[in-house]
């Protein structure tokens, strides 16, 4: 990674950034609808203050925190990451935020904590929640060693601005070597667990979406190929990179694992 002239740390090999407009008007956030433009259209109703983050499970310093107070005390940095959606499109995004590992350490996870689970807010008056079949809240999780990897990131901003609601304000996960749905938005709860937590897409379609969801061009989605992707802004598809181009940093996490089985 190199540092750009704007002081951002570039983890996308100098690739052109997608525009703020692209990033904020085309994405998935199923609480606001299943269409790609639904989040931009409907997320304005989400109230960001007050916002309580509950941290519990296998940890010694859990509790309910005022999220805005909590993140105000943290140093933030800017990182440029590629984001690859499981649907076959991708973007290059400059996030602002902080590394996940040190953030989680503040809550003193115990030896029993082997996984960390995340939940999105459920606010029926502020969200549409009309996607059929989804058992809210939206859930995601990581193995602890994945969460502690220096690439794992919590974003609170985008392009020098506070994170827009449609992109997961006030705080979202960014795990750049996994399909985008792992990077859970608008987090209200972090729970340390001893066993693998349930994750929303896996609950919906276990055959199609695994717990790991690592970007892998050699393991296809049962219904479509994952070998190529369309970078937003380009017309033709390009080849998808193993671990979304982050193999050097993360491949070791999966040594000895059959990635066809643990998809």
């Amino acid at each position, binding site marked *: 990674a190199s540092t750009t002239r704007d002081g951002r740390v570039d983890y996308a090999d100098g690739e052109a950034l997608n525009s703020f407009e692209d990033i904020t008007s085309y994405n998935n956030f199923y609480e606001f609808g299943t269409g790609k433009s639904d989040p931009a259209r409907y997320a304005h109703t989400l109230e960001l203050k007050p916002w309580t983050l509950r941290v519990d499970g296998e940890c010694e310093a859990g509790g309910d925190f005022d999220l805005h107070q909590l993140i105000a005390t943290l140093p933030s940095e800017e990182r440029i990451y590629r984001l690859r959606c499981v649907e076959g*499109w991708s973007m290059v995004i400059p996030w602002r935020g902080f590394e996940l590992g040190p953030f989680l350490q503040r809550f003193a996870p115990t030896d029993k904590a082997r996984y960390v689970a995340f939940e999105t807010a459920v606010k029926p008056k502020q969200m549409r929640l009309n996607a*059929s079949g989804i058992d809210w809240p939206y859930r995601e999780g990581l193995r602890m060693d994945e969460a502690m990897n220096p690439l794992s990131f919590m974003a609170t901003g985008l392009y020098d601005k506070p994170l827009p609601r449609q992109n997961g304000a006030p705080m979202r996960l960014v795990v750049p070597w996994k399909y985008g749905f792992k990077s859970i938005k608008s987090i209200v709860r972090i729970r340390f667990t001893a066993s693998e937590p349930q994750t929303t897409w896996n609950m919906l379609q276990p055959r199609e979406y695994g717990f790991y969801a690592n970007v892998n061009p050699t393991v296809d989605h049962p219904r479509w190929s994952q070998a190529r992707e*369309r970078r937003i802004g380009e*017309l*033709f598809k390009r080849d998808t990179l193993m671990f979304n181009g982050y193999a050097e940093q993360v491949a070791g996490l999966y040594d000895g694992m059959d990635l066809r089985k643990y998809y």
Partner: protein
Amino acid sequence: MPAWRPSTGHIRLLCFALCAIPLGQAAWWIASAQLGVNPIETLTHHSGQWALRLLLVTLAMSPLQRLARWRWPLQIRRQLGLWSFFYLLCHFAVYLVFDLSLSLARLGEEVLERPYITVGFAALLLLTPLAVTSTRGWQRRLRRNWKRLHRLVYPAAVLACVHFIWKVKVSEPEPFIYLTVLLVLFAVRLRRA
């Protein structure tokens, strides 16, 4: 004074103008850079949607003619079918050029390995001879077989609905609405038989 009745020519012209609207829409979006953040996806979806919608409209023409005792539905049926096929070709062309970068090897792989592509491609294969033999000359040459051949439109319509249902990530109402319309059209036909 005799009631004014639109001629067959007028009806066909009106049908042509209406069916050309989605094409004009796409042209306008391209010209004014309004295809959105993912332009290829927009074009793929738009062309596929209209191919399927117009296929269902085509299939609705003979029940409409029978139930309402109008003549005009049968006068525009062929044109509707051809418009549907035109949007289907656009749909396939966008996919072949921009998704597969014109690689026939990739196309073969996708047809064999991706069920939603298999059924979509099968629908295209079934509808192609129907478009080719839609002329009066072919109708005469094939005689009774023409009707038999053109029954392929029913499996093709089913495959097109399945293609759409298998493509969406979570169940969305739109493809099921089309499937329901198709089933209603089947029911109307079976009731007569």
